């Protein structure tokens, strides 16, 4: 990509991450995941999509469409919500483990 994209690519690479949500003690149920943006490091603040939280909402997804409700506190989700954030190599840290891939995608000859 041209030089004009240098800063954007660096920002994107630095800020990009994936967020996965799962239930405590139920790893086999699988997890919900999406992409996110690292807003701040150390302390770490991440902004991601809210869609992966609907299975955990105490009041169900209807809470998201109530009039004049623009935000919900963290405890609007059940206590068994477990969140993990993963991002690319930015700092000299010990090698990480990536989650094992699930079958479901392939690269068909076209």
């Amino acid at each position, binding site marked *: 990509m041209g030089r*004009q*994209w240098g*800063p*954007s*690519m*660096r*920002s*994107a*690479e*630095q*800020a*990009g*991450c*994936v*967020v*996965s949500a799962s239930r405590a003690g139920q790893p086999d149920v699988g997890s919900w*995941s*999406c*992409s*996110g*943006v*690292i*807003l*701040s*490091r*150390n*302390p770490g*603040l*991440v*902004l*991601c*999509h*809210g*869609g992966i*939280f*609907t*299975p955990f909402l105490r009041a169900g*997804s209807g809470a*998201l469409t109530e009039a004049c409700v*623009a*935000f*919900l*506190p*963290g405890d609007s*989700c059940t206590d068994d919500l*477990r*969140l993990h*954030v*993963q*991002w*690319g*190599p*930015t*700092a000299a*840290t010990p*090698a*990480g483990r990536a*989650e094992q891939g699930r079958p*479901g*995608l392939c690269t068909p000859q076209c």
Partner: protein
Amino acid sequence: AGLGLGLQPRGRPLQPPRPAELLLLLSCPAFRAHFARLFGAEAAEQWHFVSAAPDDEVSEEEEEDQLRALGWFALLRVRRGADAEGEERGPALAVAPLGSVAKGAPLLACGSPFGAFCPDIFLNTLSRGVLSNAAGPLLLTDARCLPGTEGGGVFAARPAGALVALVAAPLCWKAREWVGLTLLCAAAPLLQAARAALVRLHPDSAALAALLPPEVGTPRGLPLRDLAPPWASAAVLVECGSVWGSGVAVASRLVVTCRHVAPRESARVLVHLATPKSVAIWGRVTFATQETSPYDIAVVSLEEDLDGVPMPVPAEHFHEGEPVSVVGFGVFGQACGPLVTSGILSAVVQVDDAPVMLQTTCAVHGGSSGGPLFSTHSGDLLGIVASNTRDNSTGATYPHLNFSIPVTVLQPALQQYSQTGDLCGLQELDRATEPVKVVWRLQRPLPNAPQSKL
């Protein structure tokens, strides 16, 4: 590690997943209001934003959940790692103020298709496009995004590296057709909402709120201007009875569109300008090609001047592979300003060494017909969009394969008519040769039949 390949497919190894806690769920009221206006009410039936992994069956309930959550985002606090002190902070992220990125400006989307499914391969996958349309904080880009990239960042080239938006819905289907656009929520208003919510929910979190990235550049309160590139303003919306489509101003009182938008000569037409908004001028169809003509063209003469609308310069040459942009009122019609999509000139089809058809990779939708095809770099008018592609056997539509009439076919006749009112040049369009008709019927040209020697 990872895929068990013993390789590091994307350079150095990923960081290990880090536990995090949910601070709050937030949405941008203005985004939701625009979403309801553009995609709600009677339009709701037509639109689907399913974002499921390929092998997931999506129940109606799940689809409803996804729709409800479409405009919601989550602010998380990541637990400190054991060697937090050693971690690099990396460059500070900056946020582009709402409205500071022009329509048609290039954007870079960064997300991980299928989320955490295979981060070794898919983490931070890039995709490029342009800002195609904007309605407040609800933005659209033609950068291709896949399920799992929801929440991914979208960055601008200018301001350099600034975060513009987050992906809200990567795939948009209208009437079961993929429209090739990704729905975004602008980052600036979202972070303002996050700041306000943090202060209200966690009174002692002023320090946290201070961590949220600042907006760059322009002081607040600048009026939101339609920053589309000048040439995009030449695109107009053409309404003829109950039919509407797009068109382009080619002279102060002349608009060109497609015959299938304004088919009947002398029919009255209402032309809506993109800028200034809400200006509409009456006109009359002074010429429309015959049904038998391969050139699907109509010419409208207006009752008033098109004040303040820059007239595009007609191109004289076409370069396959050059970046191009289509501007039209497809997808939303009058509910939104013109849509800009980008691509390249993928083919110039010629008959007797003269261009008779242009093909592009821009996303072109119903309602875009009659709109202008521009050279992105020069802003010159290359052609008039006539159609995209539908596979008659499957019924599938392909927005990214479309056909335009080269401006070189039209320009001499338009100039003659504009200067003298003489329609002779335009009427020649009804006498196009058989090879041109064969091309526009997407038929294979007949080989030259060998002449009989007898």
